[in-house]
């Protein structure tokens, strides 16, 4: 099942995917996805993100890096101000020279998880969604990098449209993911290339902190990040999970 949250005719609804990929309201009415306003599919709690979690992306950025893929996961946190739903708009700061998207598989936790072993970790996953975790590289500073000013800007983390039940995703490490900018494919990878895989990430994170239902882990992005401009329509897509559409606007 695929579940989402939308606003329609001035009301907020929990919806599911109905026939032909349409949006099904609780009363059974079916709507086109372009008829509704999309919210993030879950009221997320702690938002955890991974940097440098795909081998090819590490290679892409390696000249400016001092870490290797053998290191512990690079984990950073985000606030809810950063989130924006499907078909939302993301502001591009006027002074930015390099702002790029990042197509990422988002893993949503379904119940309290503390010191979970990798072997059991997938039992704690309720589902998956797509995230586009924009970064404005102009603002990178080498303190708690990637610093909050790069990664926690308002509406710079698109997420959705659907939360897809974990039961409907037999292998989350065998999914193609790609990004299209104005229809042209610019990023094309596979979740099989993650350095730290989901069960290992959950074991690692829950050895540090208790995760709760609604917490989400953004698992990083493959290579192929390019600069985007106001007006660009960015589609981040993961096979079997969904296509998340976002439009850049002038800040």
């Amino acid at each position, binding site marked *: 099942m695929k579940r989402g949250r939308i606003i329609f005719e001035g009301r907020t609804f929990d919806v599911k995917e109905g026939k032909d990929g349409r949006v099904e309201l609780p009363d059974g009415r079916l709507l086109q996805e372009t008829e509704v306003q999309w919210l993030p599919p879950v009221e997320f709690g702690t938002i955890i993100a991974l940097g440098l979690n795909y081998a090819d992306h590490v290679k892409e950025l390696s000249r400016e890096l001092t870490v290797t893929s053998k290191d512990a996961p690079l984990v950073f946190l985000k606030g809810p101000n950063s989130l924006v739903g499907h078909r939302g708009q993301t502001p591009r700061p006027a002074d930015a020279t390099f702002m790029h998207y990042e197509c990422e598989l988002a893993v949503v936790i379904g119940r309290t998880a503390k010191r979970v072993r990798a072997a059991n970790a997938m039992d704690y996953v309720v589902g998956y969604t797509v995230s586009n975790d924009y970064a404005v590289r102009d603002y990178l500073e080498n303190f708690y990098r990637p610093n909050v000013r790069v990664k926690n800007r*308002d509406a710079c983390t698109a997420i959705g449209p659907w939360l897809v039940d974990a039961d409907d995703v037999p292998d989350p490490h065998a999914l193609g993911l790609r990004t299209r900018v104005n229809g042209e494919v610019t990023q094309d990878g596979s979740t099989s290339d993650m350095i730290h895989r989901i069960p290992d990430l959950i074991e690692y994170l829950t050895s540090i902190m208790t995760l709760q*239902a609604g917490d989400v882990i953004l698992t990083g992005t493959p290579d192929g990040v390019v600069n985007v401009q106001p007006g660009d329509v960015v589609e981040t897509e993961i096979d079997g999970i969904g296509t998340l559409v976002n439009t850049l606007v002038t800040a």
Partner: protein
Amino acid sequence: MTHFFLDDDLPVGTVYGALLNDRATIERLTPQFDRPPYKAVPKAPILYIKSRNTFAADGDVVEVPADPGEVRVEATIGLVIGKIATRVSADQAMNHVVGMVIVSDLTLPHENYYRPAVVQRNRDGFCPMSRMFTAQTGFDLGNATLSVSINEKRVYERSFSTLVRPAAELIADVTAFMTLTTGDVLLLGPGDGAPIAHAGDQINIAVPGLGDLGHSVVEEKLS
């Protein structure tokens, strides 16, 4: 979703802390800023997030891992946002603050600030917070002082007159790039040379004119 309340009807939102916001820390680290990994002096506010698993209340018992068996007590004041704040000027900033909390911002000791310190800062219970206080008459945040006592012995004092960005400037510089919303807490950041506490210690933090906060630290039980 369960909430942690600062007040009868104010659930806490997101807690942000400001790193490197004490002038003595900046002076101490300045010789390192030109070198790797930093390569430049900090420009914009460097923030970190205390996630909801870290929230703890006055009187709570906080577990620290047996290794290293100690925590740094980066005691500070948190500004509680009462009105959504986006691109707020320093002149207007304090109109967005509804009250203050005293916070025992705990971290495993670390001296390298290159990567986000989630492992050190985001362990369960590592953000004990007082209830929300409104300042007593005559309280001046810009000259406020804070003391930390461990096992009833005063071990640390700091003043908020030496911040790199005082409260209003911090709100202005943070909201220049992100929104703070009602219930969010913006910590003014660690003082330099913050004290270390060990398992078994009782910690008390006092801010004259505002209030106090106490909690203890015990060794984590790996059940």
